[in-house]
């Protein structure tokens, strides 16, 4: 069978991811982690990993289990691996977070939790990556979007390797080599994770989803290959160059300058490709997922401008929190939320009505959603994120917590829309559940 069926556990991944997003927002409202705490404090480590692993990685993994088979036209190598991965990632993240709390003195000094968490996460991500790589291996030659995912997975490997070495070093099992990597390598871990794994993967999947949802011709494969090549060079420079600099005990400044030049070029090339997808679309009226994605792209562009401005002002290190916040919540979270809105509706529609389609009248995908109502929540979300970024730059930690509260309210609104979609609550036609169609289960397809 060619991979166009509904992946069983994708909704569970999304639900787990959303639960962690709420947790992250609650932490920010409570003033836990940056900016209330130092950027390197254990509370900040908790917050960053809740967002990067719990929320973003969980949702992207769920989406990839569904869409890699579509990208390559082959069924997933193992559908059975999806649930163990979800369990391993969740257990690993919890152990890691507890380890960070132990590190900060909020728990007894059970520092072995850090390597334990890292090992569970490596097992989870490793199983996940092996599943996708084998799926792609049997589907060669690879489509352009799938190549992005492959490079994203390589970056995930680098992120996990660096993170694991930090975990062992922080737990006191490091030795001089791992300690040296820990001392200078944290920015490399962040670049590999946020820039490589999360951003390159999101870029690759967005090429296909935007083309599908807007009826655009796929981006010319030569052009997307250039974008990917520059992106991969950026990562290679950052990780290999960074590690080499650490090995010869040189400073990382040159590595960061070269990485930022290549990184800006990657975003510019990606922006050109995305503008093309919008320009050449056949579906003239934008659906909510594609119009809200524009705000995510705007956030990505804005974070590049912000990063350059901070670097020129010489305050990049001091204000890095605002820069990372805008990438994490404006670009990545914004894109994931916008795409979830469509993916949940489409998969629910396919699961419910696919079996009876053509035999009885069925609602359209757009009948499952009420876009004007959802638009308000998305507008509130992006407004809160941009306000929060500005408040971070202005050093207004208390006001930042109010903006974080706005983010949580908006997220709750969006999630309520997703739940209504999943339960077909907004389908008003008589054909809501025609004979032979069943209401889908919330978390399992």
């Amino acid at each position: 069978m060619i991979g166009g069926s509904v992946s069983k556990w994708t909704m569970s991944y999304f639900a787990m991811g959303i639960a962690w997003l709420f947790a992250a927002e609650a932490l920010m409202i409570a003033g836990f982690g940056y900016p209330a705490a130092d950027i390197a404090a254990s509370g900040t480590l908790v917050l960053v990993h809740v967002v990067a692993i719990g929320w973003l990685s969980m949702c992207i993994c769920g989406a990839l289990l569904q869409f890699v088979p579509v990208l390559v036209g082959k069924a997933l190598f193992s559908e059975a691996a999806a649930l163990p991965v979800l369990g391993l990632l969740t257990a690993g993240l919890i152990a890691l977070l507890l380890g960070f709390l132990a590190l900060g003195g909020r728990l007894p000094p059970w520092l072995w939790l850090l390597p334990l968490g890292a090992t569970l996460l490596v097992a989870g991500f490793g199983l996940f990556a092996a599943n996708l790589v084998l799926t792609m291996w049997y589907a060669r030659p690879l489509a352009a979007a799938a190549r992005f995912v492959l490079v994203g997975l390589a970056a995930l490997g680098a992120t996990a390797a660096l993170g694991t070495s930090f975990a062992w070093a922080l737990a006191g099992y490091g030795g001089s080599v791992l300690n040296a990597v820990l001392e200078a390598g944290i920015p490399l871990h962040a670049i590999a994770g946020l820039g490589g794994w999360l951003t390159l993967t999101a870029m690759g999947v967005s090429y296909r989803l935007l083309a599908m949802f807007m009826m655009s011709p796929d981006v010319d494969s030569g052009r997307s290959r250039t974008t990917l090549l520059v992106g991969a060079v950026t990562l290679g420079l950052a990780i290999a160059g960074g590690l080499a600099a650490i090995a010869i005990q040189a400073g990382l400044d040159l590595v960061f300058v070269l990485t930022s030049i290549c990184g800006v070029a990657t975003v510019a090339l990606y922006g050109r490709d995305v503008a093309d997808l919008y320009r050449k679309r056949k579906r003239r009226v934008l659906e909510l997922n594609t119009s809200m994605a524009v705000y995510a792209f705007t956030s990505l562009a804005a974070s590049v401008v912000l990063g350059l401005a901070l670097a020129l002002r010489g305050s990049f290190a001091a204000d890095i929190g605002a820069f990372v916040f805008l990438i994490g919540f404006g670009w990545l979270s914004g894109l994931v939320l916008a795409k979830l809105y469509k993916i949940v509706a489409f998969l629910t529609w396919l699961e419910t009505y696919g079996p009876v389609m053509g035999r009885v009248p069925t609602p359209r995908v757009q009948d499952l959603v009420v876009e004007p109502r959802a638009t308000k929540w998305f507008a509130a979300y992006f407004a809160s994120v941009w306000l929060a970024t500005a408040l971070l730059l202005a050093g207004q930690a208390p006001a930042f917590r109010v903006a974080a509260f706005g983010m949580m309210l908006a997220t709750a609104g969006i999630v309520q829309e997703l739940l209504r979609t999943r339960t077909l609550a907004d389908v008003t036609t008589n054909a809501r559940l025609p004979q032979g169609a069943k209401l889908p289960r919330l978390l399992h397809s």
Partner: protein
Amino acid sequence: MTEYLDVDVRPILRAGGEPFSVIMAAVDNIAPGQGIRLFAPFKPVPLFGVMAGKGFDHSETEIGGGEWQVLFTPMEAPPPAPVPAAQAGGQWPEPKIRLDNRELDPPEPMVRILAAAETLGPGETLSALLAREPVFLFPQLERRGFNWLGGFLPDGVTYELTVRAPS
């Protein structure tokens, strides 16, 4: 003068076998410029789109007894990277329904193809033109017991799908 490799799928089909992979293997094995002379117990219409996607023109002649000889000749300029995908078997008559779904918003093409497929009699076929490979449609067709055969046409952007009802 084009040279042709003979491929006779009549014994395979008579034995209830699956000729598609044999034909594709032949396509992979011929030298550049070489063509394929196919012998089939019916006019293999769905194959024409697939072979066009691989860069072959066709010309068919009935050789009596309902059997056909088809010459697949390499085109002058091969099309850009065609992507064939297929699942075939048995006899494929001329399509009873032809749909042009290229201008429809997704997932409307899928809904229409499934609706039209439900009206086919046993063994009848329909053909549809699409703007992209309908990956979410395939599992639905397979679940209902339909066979299908699809591939991009030489223009590289039109996907031709032929669906055959279970006989």
